């Protein structure tokens, strides 16, 4: 079996498995998995910039929120239907990430982290400042009647699951294709040694800019879908916490692996969910597990799998 075949079988298999799970999972886990797939999409976007390009952003909540509010505000105030509203969310994400890239990519390393963090914080405060429209920290509900996409009611559990599955599937395949294409290889090369790539004649700035826009747009898609599927847009999704989450998910699952973001999101979600059933100090449990993973599987779960078993994992 060729490497490409193996890769297609593995990733296609995951999507088929997720599709089939829809019919067998009990209601609680069914709802969770829909949520996890949307959040994993966010992590997939983050992974393109962090895992493959080597740029550690602390401001991705800005893009997630750009998508969520681009979608939510147009539905709420301009009476848009979900399809054009989702498009507005995507465009908002692309524009915001493009603009931030132009500024932040002038820096590198720690400075890049700080600049992205500051802009995300500015975005969060902007949402609070325009509270008249955004309802600030309280946020607003996207009513059930406003969540009907092409006649499909997205508040229905089955439809929600399929929408989340579709979004995740598309973004996962984009990510898979991207990292195997010459463009993605160049991103990995930039991550490994930017100077050398530049010396070989590549425009590294353009590559990083494009990577950031793709990453930001996927994050925005996740934000827009999250708001639409679960009926709520609020400023907490723009807070610094939501910039840290995708970093954690990707680190746990395996940075620079296509499946890592999903594995990390799934793991973290159930870690919190199960440990919170045991003690109110569940963040302590989560913390200890994170420390242990960092010590014993520094490349994340999927990264470790690649190191030990499947060396062909993209």
């Amino acid at each position, binding site marked *: 079996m060729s490497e490409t075949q193996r890769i297609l079988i593995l990733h296609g298999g995951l999507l088929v498995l997720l599709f089939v799970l829809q019919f067998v999972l009990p*209601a609680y886990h069914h709802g969770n998995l829909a949520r996890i797939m949307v959040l994993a999409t966010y992590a997939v976007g983050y992974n393109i910039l962090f895992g493959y390009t080597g740029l550690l952003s602390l401001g991705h909540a800005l893009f997630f929120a750009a998508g969520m509010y681009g979608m939510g505000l147009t539905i709420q105030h301009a009476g848009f239907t979900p399809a054009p509203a989702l498009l507005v969310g995507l465009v908002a994400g692309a524009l915001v990430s493009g603009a931030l890239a132009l500024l932040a990519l002038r820096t590198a390393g720690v400075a890049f982290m700080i600049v992205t963090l500051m802009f995300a914080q500015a975005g969060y405060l902007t949402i609070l*400042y325009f509270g008249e429209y955004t309802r*600030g920290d*309280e946020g607003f509900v996207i009513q059930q009647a406003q969540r009907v996409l092409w006649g499909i009611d997205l508040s229905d559990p089955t439809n929600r699951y399929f929408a989340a599955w579709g979004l995740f599937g598309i973004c996962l395949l984009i990510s898979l294709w991207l990292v195997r294409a010459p463009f993605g290889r160049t991103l990995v090369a930039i991550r490994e040694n930017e100077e050398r790539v530049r010396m070989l004649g590549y425009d590294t700035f353009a590559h990083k800019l494009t990577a950031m826009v793709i990453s930001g747009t996927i994050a925005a898609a996740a934000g827009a879908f999250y708001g639409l599927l679960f009926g*709520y847009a*609020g400023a*907490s999704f723009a807070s610094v916490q939501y910039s840290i989450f995708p970093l954690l998910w990707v680190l746990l699952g395996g940075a620079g692996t296509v499946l890592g973001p999903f594995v990390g999101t799934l793991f973290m979600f159930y870690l919190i969910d199960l440990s919170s059933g045991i003690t*109110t100090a569940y963040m302590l449990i989560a913390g200890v597990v994170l420390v242990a993973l960092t010590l014993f599987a520094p490349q994340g779960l999927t990264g470790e799998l690649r190191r030990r078993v499947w060396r062909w994992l993209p």
Partner: protein
Amino acid sequence: MTKLIKDTTRRGALKTMAGAAAGAATMPLWARFAQAQSSEPIKIGFQQHSTGIGAAYGRWYGRTTEAAVKLINENGGINGRMVEIVAEDDGTDPKRGAEVVEKFATQHNCDVGFGTLFSHVVIGSAPRAGELKLPYFVVSEGHHVASGMLNRYTLQPGITDVKSQVQAMAPYVAENLGKKVTMVFPDFAFGHDHRDFFTAAIEAQGGEVLEHIAIPPAETSFTKYFPKIPRDTEVLYHVMVGPAVLTFVKELGEFFGPSRPEMFGFIDSLEAVAIDSPGLEFLEGTYFWEGMPRHAQGDQSEHDKFYRAAVGVNERGASVSDPTDISTYAHMFGCWETLYVIKAGMEAAGYQGPGDRAALIEAVEAMSDMPESRAHPQGAKVFNGKTHQVFGHQYISRVEGGKLVKVHTTSIEDTFYPDEVDYTTQPL
């Protein structure tokens, strides 16, 4: 037609007998389960802010809830069934809040969800409660329920909302403290509610707001905002919340010295904080809204006395076991009263199980007068079934010698405003 007859073997007979015996052995188990259906406890999912910014409130909401449930169970439970609280921490986060509501409905099989305080968690969670058709009783004092933003399955029958609280303060402020008001409020939704509702209410009383001073959420020092307070301000209205409130009061004291205007604030800022804490001396002689008087008053009702003892709160509003642990007395009665509303609703609806959730909603919607009683120790209330919001008395207290002394009780009518929604038109 031919019939295949299998030979009976010794092994086959033994197998059959063993199977039958095993079946018989399990009989009592499932028989007990079938019988248990009706005596299973009623499960109330308690969405608790155990961690995050709402933790101080969550702790006391928890204690009040436990006390009420203990009492309800001691008196025979609801419809003869015991009540069990299933508490889940939502981290005071709307995303986790929605997940917790899903967990109540689809994993714990709770009959209802209950107890959410912070507005953003309510607003983030309520859509899921509506979709899952889980009756969701919030104790939030937000205007979100009555504004029509939420859905038929979300109700607030145990605590009044900020719009009614704020507007009921205006007549007293205008009459007794002054008509020229300057407002200082945090620059987020909670502060904006105060800004909008109070400005309108004081204007209706012939007063005016001279200046709105919005303080950004992350501010730690306030001195630079005080020069914006106009000199002819008669009343300073403040609703600062969060850990910076002590600094706010201290700096305000340094700014005004002995010649301050009258001051009126919402106790929300100082819930779980001792009013005689060092640094709060400047509040002496100022006025506060209280949802329920924290300090036992001279005319303390028998119901307040009973409720206070049941929850374990002393006459100064602190825990009986730790006098430094101050309660969130102005809000937490909402949990107690909501649980009694759930009890009354389930009894009126003849509630048996999740199949009767719609009937429970209708039973609560049919409620109206709630007289002051042990079930309603904060005072009498009127529930509006259309807007799913309860209305009740509000209290104004003055700080006198480190004690909050009640000086005014509003009428329930003072808190009314025209309906903004009719949830009963939505399908169940």
